C-alpha cells in the first residue's frame, strides 16, 4: 500500500497577541492509500488546524508533511493552490456551493482552474461525478433549489471531480439530519469501497464506527490511533432508521 500522507512531528504555533498558542504539539502519522480515517477531537483539540495542514491550506511551523511524496512545508502559496487543485477534494460542513449556479457548474469549479482540462472533458467529468453521487437527474438544478443532502452530494461530487489523492471532509454531516447524515455516510463508505482515501474530521465520536481507522486528538497531540476491525455498515443503519413521513 502506498503512503498518501506522511506527517512527522508536526508543530503548529499561532501568535495571539503576546502569547504563543501551540495548536499542534508534535503530531506524526501516516495514511495509506484506500484508508478511511476519522480524525476526532473536541473543540480546541487542534483538529481544525490539522485539517488546514492536511488540506495544504496552512503549513506547519515545524515538522514534515509529505502528500503523495510532495513536501508541502516548503511550498509557496501558489504551489499549494495547484497541489490542492490536483490532489485534494474538500467537503465542508456548510457545503460551500456557489449560489445561483447549477450543480454541474459547481462540480466543474475545480477543473476550471486546471488548464489541461478542456471544457468538454470538464463537463463530462462533472456529469460523471454527479452520477456517482446519485444526482445524475439533477445536473442543472440551481444550488438553492436543492435539499441539504443534495447540496452535500454536489459538494462531494465537486471533491471527487479532480480525482484527488485524498478526500478531506470537515464535519460533512454536521448540518444534516440523522437520516440524511447516514445517507452521506453510505456514500462515503461506497467511495471508500471504490478505493478512495478519505479523511473525515468530526467532533462526533459515533461516526468512528463507520471508518477503518480512528485518530483522536487532544490538546494538539494524538491520544489514540486505532484501526477499526469491525466497521459498521451505514447502509444497514440507514435501513433500520424509522422512515419519516
Amino acid at each position, binding site marked *: 500500500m502506498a503512503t498518501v500522507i506522511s506527517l512527522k512531528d508536526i508543530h503548529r504555533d499561532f501568535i495571539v497577541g503576546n502569547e504563543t498558542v501551540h495548536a499542534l504539539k508534535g503530531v506524526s502519522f501516516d495514511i495509506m492509500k484506500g484508508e478511511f480515517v476519522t480524525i476526532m477531537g473536541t473543540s480546541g483539540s487542534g483538529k481544525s488546524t490539522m485539517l488546514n495542514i492536511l488540506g495544504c*491550506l496552512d503549513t506547519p511551523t515545524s515538522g514534515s508533511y509529505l502528500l503523495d511524496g510532495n513536501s508541502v512545508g516548503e511550498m509557496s502559496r501558489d504551489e499549494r*493552490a495547484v497541489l490542492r487543485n490536483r490532489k485534494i477534494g*474538500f467537503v*465542508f460542513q456548510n457545503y*460551500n456551493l*456557489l449560489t445561483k449556479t447549477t450543480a454541474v457548474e459547481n462540480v466543474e*469549479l475545480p477543473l476550471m*482552474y486546471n488548464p489541461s482540462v478542456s*471544457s468538454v472533458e470538464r463537463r463530462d467529468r462533472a456529469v460523471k461525478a454527479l452520477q456517482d453521487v446519485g444526482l445524475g437527474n439533477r445536473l442543472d438544478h440551481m444550488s438553492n433549489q436543492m435539499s441539504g443532502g443534495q447540496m452535500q452530494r454536489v459538494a462531494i461530487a465537486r471533491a471527487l471531480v479532480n480525482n484527488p489523492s485524498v478526500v478531506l471532509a470537515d464535519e460533512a454531516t454536521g448540518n444534516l439530519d440523522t437520516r440524511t447524515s447516514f445517507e452521506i455516510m453510505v456514500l462515503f463508505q461506497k467511495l471508500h469501497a471504490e478505493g478512495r482515501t478519505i479523511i473525515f474530521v468530526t467532533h462526533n465520536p459515533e461516526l468512528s464506527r463507520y471508518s477503518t481507522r480512528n485518530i483522536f486528538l487532544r490538546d494538539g497531540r494524538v491520544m489514540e490511533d486505532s484501526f477499526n476491525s469491525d466497521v459498521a455498515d451505514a447502509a444497514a443503519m440507514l435501513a433500520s432508521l424509522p422512515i419519516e413521513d
Partner: protein
Amino acid sequence: MNFGNLLKISLRALGNNKFRSFLTMLGIIIGVASVITMLAIGQGSKRSIQQQISEMGSNMIMIQPGADTRGGVRQDASSMQTLKLEDYETIRKQVTSVVAVSPLVSSSGQLINGNNNSPSSLQGVGLDYLSIRQYQISEGDYFSEQDIRTAAKVCVVGKTVVENLFPDGNDPIGKIIRFNSIPFRITGVLKSKGYNAMGRDQDDIVLAPYTTVMKRILSVTYLQQIVCSAVSERRTEEAVEEITEVLRYTHKIKVDGEDNFTIRSQQELSSMMNSTTDLLTILLSCIAGISLLVGGIGIMNIMYVSVTERTKEIGLRMSVGARSRDILSQFLVEAVIISITGGVIGVLLGVFCAILINVVAQWPVFVQPWSVLLSFGVCTVTGIFFGWYPARKASSLNPIDAIRYE
C-alpha cells in the same frame, strides 16, 4: 486558468448580481456619455467656425505693405506704397502655388441713389476676387476685363447695399448710383453671404474695377492689399513662402533685410479660432472627465463591497485550487467588463444625446471617431485602475479565514 474560463467565471459572477452590476455600470455610462456629448459639442462648434472661415476662403492669403521704416519710424500701413501693381502681375505670373490673385484698394464714402444713401466702402478689385472670397453673382454680371482696362465706372453690389439704396424693391441692375460724387453703373448683385464669424456684414460691399478706384477715386499707383488663393488649403504655407521669395526678389531686399510687406493667411485666423474652441472642448471634457472619475470610484466602491460579500466564495475558489493571480484576474476582469460594457452603452447614449442636442437645441455637434476610441481606452484603464485595489485585496485573502468567513 485560461482566459476563456476566466471570462466565463467573471461573467457568471456579474450575472448573479445583475442589478448591482448595472448600477455600477451606470456611473461609467453617464461618465462616458457626457464625455462623448461634450466633445461632440466642442467639435461641432469648432467645425462650424471652420466652415465659416472656409466660406470666407480658407486658402486665402493677404499681402499687405508693411515694415516700411523711414528714419527708424515705422509707418502706418495705409500710407505705405511698397505694394505696386507690378507685384500683382509678378505674383500672377510667377507664383505657381496660387490659383487666383486680385489687387485690393478701397475707399470709404457715401453711396447715394436719389434720396437714399448709406455709408459704405468701395473696393477696387480684379476679376479673381469673387473666387478668392467665394462670392457669387446672383443677378446681372460681374464687370469685365474690358472694364478693368478702361477703368470703367461700373460696380457690383451686395444685398445690404441694394436694400439700403433701393428700399422700394426696384431692380438695381443697370441703375446709376453715386459714390460720393462719382456715378457708377450697377452691373450685378452679389449672392448673400450673411454675417461672418466676426459679426461683419459680408453683404455690405461694393466692388469696382481696381483701376477705377486707383485712378478715378484715390489717384494712387500703389495697392493697399493683394489677395490670392492658394491651390489648396494644405498648400497655403507653401504659397506664402513662394510669394515671400518672389516679392523679396522683385523688391530687391537684401538677405538680411526686413520684408517690406506682410503676408497673412486665413490659416492663422483659423488656428486662432481653433485655439478658442479647443479651450472650450478641454473645459467641457474636464467636467465630463470628472464624472467618469466618479464612475470609476463607483466601480471601486462596489468591487470592495463585493470582495467582502464574496469572501466565502473566494475562500472556496482558493481551496479548490485558485491561485492568488486567478482571483486577482477574476476581479480585474469583472471590473473591466463593467467598465467596457458601461463604455459601449455610454458611447451609444452619448451619440444619442449629441444628436438630440443637435435636433432640439440646433447646436452644431460632431462626434469624432477618436473621442469614441479615447472613451474606450479611458474606460478600460478606469476598470483596471479602480478594480486593481479590490482585486488585490481579494487575492491576498487567507483561504482558511475566507472559507470560514460568515
